């Protein structure tokens, strides 16, 4: 079986879509290294799209001011809430090549849409954000600089978790270490090296992992010896709203989906059996800031 077929059978690569000529044209084999693609998957989040897109556009401005290039890809995953109409208006308003929208004819689910974004990205470095997230634009160049300078497969920063106006916690603000095998504390709202992630087959879309695909990806990266780096600066805002993408994952009660405990248990089993015990018992993650370099921990 070819690599692509093997990965496809593991629900990793979006092979079914890319077999179609119309979609396969979107695939970018050669990616540029001097910029950032911001990928925003959307599914029924019309209400939050203006905020996320505005922050991404601001982020592009900051990148340009810092001497980098950038683009935004918004992939609508078969929304039924009027998102598509809004996105078409935004596309018209910002009639430029830096903002691309893609409308999927049917709902594929977040991991497959993220994989599609990685495939489509013009740039090697990709910022993955949900439609209800908000980027802190001023810090986008800092994170891009960090991923370039460290050669990391994934760079994450502090996410300010807001419930209404109240800050409830900092998400993603911890360094990757062996505790990651117990539970995931690093969010997918991060910068990734698309080339590296695609080499490993992208996010798994196995339905049994529903809502835990980012955890599986993180453990997979570490298991494969890729670098995961924490940059102690604010990357963006995470809003907990009744319809937020996070809450929908946590509260999912569709009968066809496994429970959160079942999915977590599956990820844990996969990696407990395949080598996480061989990790550096002290640390696998790094702390880095472009102004300082790698920062010693104890």
């Amino acid at each position, binding site marked *: 079986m070819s690599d692509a077929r093997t990965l496809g059978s593991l629900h990793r690569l979006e092979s079914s879509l890319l077999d179609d000529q119309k979609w396969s044209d979107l695939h970018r084999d050669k990616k540029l290294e001097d910029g950032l693609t911001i990928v925003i998957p959307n599914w029924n989040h019309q209400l939050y799209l203006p905020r996320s897109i505005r922050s991404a556009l601001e982020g592009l401005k900051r990148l340009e001011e810092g001497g980098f290039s950038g683009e935004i890809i918004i992939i609508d995953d078969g929304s039924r809430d009027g998102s598509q109409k809004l996105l078409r208006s935004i596309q018209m308003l910002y009639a430029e090549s830096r903002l691309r929208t893609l409308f999927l004819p049917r709902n594929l689910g977040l991991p497959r849409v993220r994989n599609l974004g990685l495939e489509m990205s013009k740039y090697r470095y990709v910022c993955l954000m949900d439609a209800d997230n908000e980027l802190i634009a001023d810090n986008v160049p800092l994170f891009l600089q960090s991923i370039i300078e460290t050669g990391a497969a994934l760079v994450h920063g502090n996410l*300010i978790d807001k419930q209404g106006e109240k800050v409830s916690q900092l998400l993603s603000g911890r*360094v990757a270490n062996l505790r990651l095998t117990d539970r995931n504390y690093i969010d997918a709202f991060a910068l990734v090296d698309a080339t590296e992630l695609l080499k490993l087959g992208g996010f798994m879309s196995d339905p049994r992992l529903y809502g835990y695909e980012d955890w599986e990806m993180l453990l997979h990266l570490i298991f494969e010896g890729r670098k995961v780096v924490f940059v102690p600066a604010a990357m963006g805002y995470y809003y907990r709203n009744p319809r937020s993408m996070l809450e929908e994952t946590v509260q999912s009660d569709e009968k066809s989906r496994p429970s959160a405990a079942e999915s977590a248990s599956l990820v844990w089993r996969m990696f407990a059996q395949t080598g996480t015990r061989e990790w550096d018992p002290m640390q696998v993650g790094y702390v880095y800031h472009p102004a300082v370099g790698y920062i010693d921990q104890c």
Partner: protein
Amino acid sequence: MIVRPAIEGFFRHSVLHDELVWRLLIACKDDAQQRVEVRTSRELCGLAEEELEDATLLVVSPFECVGTSGDRPAFVSAFASARKRVLASVEPVGSSWYERQFMYPLRFDAVFDVGFVSREDKHHLSEVAYHFVFNGPTKDEERTISELSPARERPIRWAMVGYPTAQRLDLAARLTEELDSGGFVFMPGKPSLPNPDGPLQRPLARHEKISPSGLAAVLSKSSYYVWTSSHDFAHYESFRFVAALRSGAVPCKIADGDTSQDHSQIPGIFSSVESFCSAVQEEGAPSLYRLARDFYVSKGLLATHLKEALELV
């Protein structure tokens, strides 16, 4: 003789205690009349009575010293053999973790509260004499700090380091929004202590703390080192102040109204985010740094304060 916890067993390595041990050691060396050595709690157990009979013990973190000694009766016996026994503390006086240090049957002659503000009024253990020791600079620090002239602009505008509490999270978010979004924020979760009676399931991960050298590297690129207390006790974190000054950063504590009034003589205490941001805009880092430095250097060396306290025991 300075006694510190042996770093082993389930007890965790404390950067603050290491720093206290280091400062006491250097202060004794700065004062040429003080002979000093550092022993771990485990090493103390192995000392003969005659080696201790003329010694004054400065014990850092007795709770952990007993726990890591490996032989509690031997530790208690060696402790009792010393001429004088002093607890060196940096904990907020009156807090449960201050009082926890007196839990074991160790009879201290005195406690040295190392900090910026005397809290004798909160010390309720009448059988143990209280002496305040101002956490002044070592000779090297005095020279370094006096020679530093921080630039107006540094790559990182402000830095916050510590474990997360509701107040700290709120402060970090407000500074991000109201001062500068490029602040350095490292607030990993507070590590939970493993169960000492249970088997360790897996090797201990690092504590996700920045090492002292890592913190110095960050602060040397930061204009302001900002913090707020993780508790409600009126206590000033002098070690943070010193770490900031040594690296040319301005020490800034955001405290509630009562605490900021209590500590009004210390520069860099602000009663609100607004007052801090105003000071940053109106005065700037070089001016605020000079204020903090002049205050600190004017207070005299740690060696002098330590000597005075030792003479009282």
